[in-house]
């Protein structure tokens, strides 16, 4: 039987508030264990939570960015369960009245088709601390630095049909939160974590199968692999006449498989009830309008504008806008150089591949937009050709100076003097009489291929500096000039 997967994601995003959601403790990552936990985060007797307004602003911005209805009345509930890294024995979350109601995002499928994915809700909650199981010889360490960090939990509808769609959705969410500046989205540090709900059903049916939840997957790659391995496991089960049990599973990237963590029967009864320490939060239109006023241009809008203003293709635009800093970089170059397509080619080709190899953040990249702009200007004014431009770029990577300085130092000015090119061509033709004769004897349709040899030889003779278009034209003219003579 053929199956289709039905997938929904729960994405936990750590909000970039300077202090925690209900206390004044700092949220910086990487401090000594338990040094960033205040009496409130430790849940000492008698302490009380006070909500951090910045978290509400960030949540509202996210809601506005996905076109969601904002919960003007939202309330906090307690989710009760015992765990050593949950100091109060309950997590403050939003159950009945989330701050962000239904919205949607658009993903681009592999075939270029767009698909709308519904976001059920997004709610504010506090993060738990961390249990450290392997460092203390049979004992568990508890680090509460993370406890109380503001989280936005973004819950999608089960609209995703493949691991690739799930990753595309996750990347869009990542892109939006980064654009909004509400989270660094760093999955390795746990600033963005993903639970995947996965079920399968025979193609053509509409009922939902029994789902499993894969907890805490922490990279785009692992999300794709975890979902694929879970789909495969479920298909094997059903094909063998078995049944999927509703349970929570963990993905083990080393073995590329999911394994059972707890079944539904063992699941906690969280005993949700309204947190009596916190009053319901009523947001007025002024607050929401103020959040709206600070919304940056979002990736979708930017994509449309890049196609319109810089003449780049839809596909190129979608790659360029995915990361706000890369998009800003591209736009600076495209705008200043007036060469949108060239800028897109350089950013997507050279710059992104360098970034991938070196793990640089683009803001720390050695070639900043002003330098790349200069380089592209010199290509456009034909001072450089693609080959010499590459050389100059390498010089820029090594911080050898400005574009013009590198051109001067290496004598890379393109030869565009027709006389000089003609002289070069004549010298090359003279030293290869046999090839010239063959060219002239060949049929028209074969000639373009044979021309490459002369182009290469002449370019080499010019040390790569000849203007390629001119070189081509002169060569063809010279070869035809004496044709049949």
């Amino acid at each position: 039987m053929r199956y289709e997967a039905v997938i929904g994601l729960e994405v936990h995003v750590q909000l970039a508030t300077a202090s925690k959601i209900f206390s004044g403790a700092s949220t910086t990552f990487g401090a000594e264990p338990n040094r960033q936990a205040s009496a409130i985060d430790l849940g000492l007797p008698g302490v009380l939570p006070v909500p951090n307004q910045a978290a509400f602003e960030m949540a509202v911005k996210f809601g506005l960015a996905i076109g969601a209805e904002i919960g003007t009345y939202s309330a906090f509930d307690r989710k009760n369960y015992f765990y050593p890294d949950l100091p109060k024995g309950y997590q403050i979350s939003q159950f009945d009245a989330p701050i962000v109601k239904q919205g949607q995002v658009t993903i681009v499928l592999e075939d270029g088709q767009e698909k709308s994915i519904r976001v059920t809700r997004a709610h504010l909650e506090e993060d738990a601390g961390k249990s450290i199981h392997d460092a203390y010889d049979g004992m568990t360490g508890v680090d509460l630095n993370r406890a109380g960090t503001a989280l936005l939990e973004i819950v999608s509808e089960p609209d995703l049909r493949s691991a690739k769609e799930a990753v595309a959705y996750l990347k869009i969410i990542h892109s939006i939160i980064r654009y909004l500046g509400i989270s660094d989205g760093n999955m390795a540090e746990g600033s963005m974590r993903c639970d995947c709900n996965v079920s399968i059903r025979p193609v053509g049916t509409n009922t939902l199968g029994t789902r499993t939840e894969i907890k805490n997957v922490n990279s785009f790659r692992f999300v794709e692999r975890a979902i694929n391995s879970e789909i495969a496991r479920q298909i094997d089960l059903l094909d063998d006449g078995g049944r999927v049990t509703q349970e929570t599973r963990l993905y083990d990237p080393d073995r590329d498989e999911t394994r059972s963590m707890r079944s539904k029967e063992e699941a906690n009864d969280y005993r949700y009830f309204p947190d009596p320490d916190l009053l319901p939060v009523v947001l007025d239109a002024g607050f929401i309008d103020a959040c709206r006023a600070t919304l940056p241009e979002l990736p979708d809008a930017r994509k449309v504008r890049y196609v319109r203003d810089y003449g780049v293709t839809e596909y190129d635009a979608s790659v360029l806008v995915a990361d706000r800093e890369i998009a800003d970089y591209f736009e600076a170059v495209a705008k200043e150089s007036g060469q949108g397509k060239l800028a897109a080619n350089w950013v997507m080709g050279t710059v992104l591949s360098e970034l991938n190899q070196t793990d640089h953040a683009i803001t720390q990249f050695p070639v900043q937009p002003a330098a790349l702009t200069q380089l592209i200007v010199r290509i456009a004014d034909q001072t450089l050709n693609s080959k010499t431009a590459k050389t100059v770029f390498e010089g820029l990577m090594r911080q050898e100076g400005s574009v013009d300085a590198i051109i001067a130092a290496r004598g890379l000015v393109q030869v565009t003097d027709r006389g000089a090119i003609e002289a070069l061509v004549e010298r090359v033709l003279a030293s290869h009489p046999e090839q010239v004769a063959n060219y002239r004897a060949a049929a028209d349709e074969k000639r373009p291929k044979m021309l490459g040899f002369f182009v290469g030889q002449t370019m080499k003779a010019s040390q790569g500096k000849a203007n390629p278009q001119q070189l081509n034209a002169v060569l063809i003219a010279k070869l035809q000039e004496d044709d049949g003579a």
Partner: protein
Amino acid sequence: MSTLNSLSLIEQINGLAAGTFSATELVKAHLDAIDRHRALNAFITVTPELALDAAARADQLRARGEATELAGIPIAHKDLFCTEGVLTTCGSRMLSRFVAPYDAEVVTRCKAAGLSMLGKLNLDEFAMGSSNENSAYGPVRNPWDLDRVPGGSSGGSAAAVAARLTPLATATDTGGSIRQPAALTGTCGLKPTYGRVSRWGMVAYASSLDQGGLIARSAADLAIGLAVIAGHDPKDSTSARDLVPSYRDALDSPLKGLRIGLPTAFFDHRMSDAMRTRLTTVIQALTDLGAAMIEVELPHIDHAIPAYYVIAPAEASSNLSRFDGVRFGHRAADPKDLNDLYTRSRGEGFGSEVKRRILMGTYALSEGYYEAYYKKAQQIRRLIKMDFLQAFTQCDLLLGPTTPGVAFPIGAKTQDPVAMYLEDIYTVATNLAGLPGGSFPAGRIDGLPVGFQLMAPHFAESRILNVAHQVQQVTPWHHDHPEGL
């Protein structure tokens, strides 16, 4: 033997201001009294050094003319208010060694007013009880009869004030825990409006009902104390922003034309003849002062006890989850595993009434029972609040008994929790409605004191204190005290 401790709060203030005695002499007199009456078991911790230090500071300031009015006046805190550097036990074995790194807001305000803390007062464990028999530190005895309970949960506060061990004691009231012990010890107790006094640092029993307040020897003394502890606190999200009026200025308003409502349910066949006689004398005094009595209905009042005993335990079950043996409080020796750590730490640390309420509350919040219990109880709560608001359209405040009868013998109700819970039958409704309520002496039955209760609209504490003060101008009951004191 100094008798300075038998002076009322106002007399103490006047004596200090006139230089009749020093704060040091005053505090010493109270410390001596505490020592003489150790059999009452009113204190869990006595802090003579701190009290004398504060008194000495007050004397120095007063000599320089820089003292606040209350500088050096003794006070004692219910051991549910956190005190930086001083043990805070909540009457529980769980916190037998807990020293908070912060002061409760109430404690901070008392310090700022210059009051000297004598120590921490005994109570029912985590404020759960109506007799002060549920304390890991032993029962408190009623100064009127050492074989009887002082009421609870603020039994230590009431006994200490009745026995002249302190002129002023902080207390807390979740379902009657200030008013009931005040009534049973012949003292005056005020539970302010929910939100009037900060809950920061007041260890939570049932957060939506808990309210800090005071026990003293007269309405006028309460007015002085309330001015110290009332007011908005940004550390408590449920703290009210309403301005604090001058409670003292309101004391002398004439009662002519005041409409006092008598809830029919409070005066029905369940009231004993002896209690009716006491209430009738109070009503006569009020009538003589020019107030008019009208009968009012509180249609849902009989549901108050069951609703309270769902909501309060539900919140308690969650509030007390933080006592898990992981970060602070009692930890079982040599736990085998996590579950063993939890079950034995909590099993050993909590007393039986606390366990009973945690179990009841956990049950009431459980999946499948939430709607039938917690949600229904909240609906009843809203109806009761509406009953009161409706009644206050007809009258300015309500009058009733505080308790069904006099203080009962130690041990009389410990085997019958429901009989114990009915001690709160006249008091819980104001907690459910968030209203202020006060209990004031109404004379004695068989030699033991009983109280009358006043209930007012939200934030109308002044009205309660005004009416009680006027009654106290024309009746002698609040001057009654146990023989030999």
